[in-house]
């Protein structure tokens, strides 16, 4: 029991450490990537003892600034809710990571096999959606408790947007659940390791391409970043966090990046085989053209973890690229896209998937 507890604490610590640092690094990535897109040099001034390292220390400078700034609560605001809101946002984005498998099973002699997944939940998909949905409460409460019309408008927009897009998001995932026959993310990843016809990995993108497109679009809306940054809408309503300062604002900022990472890991897990590498099995690589390269368990785990990280980072990169390229939707256009565009596509996808599975005899 103690042994299990220690393993879990170590795993959870590792995930939180990795994710928070990645979110911190995201501020740097955002600065640098936007700079590259916009033909600028980007942040490169912060230095520690003269070392600039391409401005990577700007994240630390940011954190210092946020912590030392005055925390202002506007007169007439609801103090409790105003304080609690940013914690809601960050908490619910962080706990999602518990259910995401980030590597294969690690075998250490003398110990139980360790699944590289903090919580092995049977209905992990449901858990993740529940947590993502709760995350919007942070935004609503922030908008409501600030006693500012702009913030309230941001909160309202966020509510409408989340509700509309979660429907499409959920239905897109149903296709994936049908194909892999489980809601356990670990299982879903395992089953994506199978090969179709002996050479094509059975990744979600292969079996459910439409669901992938719907999922990515809806998930982008879920992260509240351009082109779906209506709750923020800098040039229109400044954002639901307009009355926040200091680290409370910083937490909303962090939650934003965390959500981007959540969505990237989810897209990786559901559609790009999670930690799988094509033709890699627990005992080594088996290529369809006959090569066999045996590998040790530690290398297998390491490669799996690296594969997962690389895919997640690639998604973060794509999302960032989209964010810095596209303009923002208007409120009614956003609703149209969600309800009249993505929702029907997702439903049709589920129906078509069901028909194909029945024809192929996959349904008992």
């Amino acid at each position, binding site marked *: 029991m103690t042994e299990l507890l220690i393993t879990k604490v170590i795993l959870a610590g590792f995930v939180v450490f990795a994710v928070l640092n990645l979110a911190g690094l995201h501020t740097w990535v955002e600065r640098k990537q*936007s700079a590259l*897109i*916009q*033909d*600028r040099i980007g942040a490169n001034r912060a230095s520690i003892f003269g070392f600039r390292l391409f401005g990577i220390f700007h994240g630390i400078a940011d954190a210092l600034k946020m912590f030392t700034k005055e925390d202002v609560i506007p007169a007439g605001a609801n103090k409790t809710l105003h304080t609690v809101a940013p914690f809601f946002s960050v908490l619910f984005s962080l706990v999602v990571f518990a259910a995401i498998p980030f590597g294969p099973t690690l075998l250490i002699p003398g110990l139980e096999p360790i699944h590289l997944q903090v919580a092995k939940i049977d209905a992990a998909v449901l858990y993740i959606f529940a947590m993502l949905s709760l995350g919007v409460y942070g935004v609503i409460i922030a908008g409501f408790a600030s006693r500012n*019309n*702009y913030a*309230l*408008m941001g909160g*309202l*927009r966020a509510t409408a947007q989340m509700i509309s897009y979660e429907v499409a998001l959920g239905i897109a995932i149903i296709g994936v659940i049908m194909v892999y026959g489980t809601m356990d993310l670990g299982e879903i990843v395992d089953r994506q390791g199978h090969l179709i016809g002996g050479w094509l990995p059975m990744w979600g993108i292969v079996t459910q391409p439409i669901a992938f497109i719907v999922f990515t679009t809806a998930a982008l809306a879920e992260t509240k970043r*351009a*082109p779906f*940054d209506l709750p923020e*809408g*800098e*040039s*229109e*309503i*400044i954002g639901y966090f307009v009355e926040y300062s200091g680290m409370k604002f910083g937490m909303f900022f962090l939650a934003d990046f965390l959500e981007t990472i959540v969505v990237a890991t989810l897209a990786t897990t559901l559609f790009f085989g999670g930690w799988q590498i094509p033709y890699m099995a627990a005992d080594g690589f088996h290529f369809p053209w006959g090569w066999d390269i045996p590998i040790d368990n530690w290398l297998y785990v390491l490669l799996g973890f690296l594969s997962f990280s690389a895919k997640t980072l690639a998604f973060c990169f794509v999302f960032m690229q989209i964010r*810095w*390229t*596209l*303009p*923002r*939707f*208007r*409120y*009614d*256009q956003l609703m149209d896209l969600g309800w009249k565009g993505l929702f029907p596509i997702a439903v049709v996808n589920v129906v078509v998937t069901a028909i194909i599975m029945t024809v192929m005899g996959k349904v008992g």
Partner: protein
Amino acid sequence: MSQLTEERMLDSGEKELVLDVRTQDMEINMGPQHPATHGVLRVVLTADGEILTSADPHVGYIHRCAEKVGENVDFDGYIPYTDRYDYLSAMNNNVGFALVVEKASGLEVPPRATWLRMIVSELNRVASHLLAFGTYGIDIGAITPFLYGFREREWVLSLFEKICGARLTYSYAFPGGVINDAPGGWFDEVLKFCDVFDRKWREYDDLLTRNKIFIERTKDVGSVTADQAREFGWTGPCLRGSGVRYDLREAQPYLFYDQVGFDVPIGRGEMGTVGDCWDRYWVRMAEMLQSTRIVRECVERCIKDTTPGEVMAKKPKTLKVAANEAYVGIENPRGELGHYLVTDGGAQCFRIKVRGPSFTNVSCLAKLLPGTMLADAVAIIGSIDIVLGEVDR
């Protein structure tokens, strides 16, 4: 519990349910510190959810009595004040005031000065429209075009710095001519800029103009018919966006605009209705290409027809103008900038009245905004492209 109390037929034939819920319109104070008002414009909006029910623009936050100042400084001394009404097109403002003084006093301007005035006016038009393009991108939610626009704008500003030493408030054209001749190599760099700019312009086209989301956001939004535009007193790209071919450079040529070839782009409702935000935006984009075309021709004529160095007419140290009155309107990047000057034989204006395009253009907000969505309000204000320095003067 809310109860259904009555059913009402709308003009469109749809039924509207009137519920027994007490709702209250939200009052939103947009500005004077708001990113989308491009300065210190304040618009008091009332909104029913996202839809605006009324809009009330308040102006005057940076009124500096520019015209009154004109009665107390001599003609040359007033030039720096003209820089500051529409600070994004200071060159054109200088030219406008210089022209009206020349008309009242009968000063002869050397041809080289006139060509140089045209070159800088058109370059300033490009710089000003680039800013309009960039900030419009930001209004719609795309930040990258802003930086692209600024990249090329920087180059224009450097060109101006080389010819007059300033990057924003130029004070370059004075009654009688311009202060400096172009330094060596300046014309070559201007031509190089024009060539590079025409290529970069395509980037803007790909990035923003033809972007699906951008088109969706701007088409059919804030449509203004030609008649309405005339009623508002609109001039410049806003009026031309509504399909009216009226450009002072063509309608009442000043400087040497009758000697160069250029087109006047007008809005055709390419994406939606004539006179929508996209049309106004598009007119600005198309005008930039016409400007580089004019600049090329002016540079060629300037080098071929004129002698270097002759850029200022002979005039007394303190210019005095006999009792007279004159009006000159010029085509600023934002519309007609008119100066009405009355002199009484002294060294100052007896009275100077400025007709600013931004001030006239902004008057439409109370009519255009109600019924649109909050996000549209930002798109409409952006598409009118006002500079508050000139609204208030």
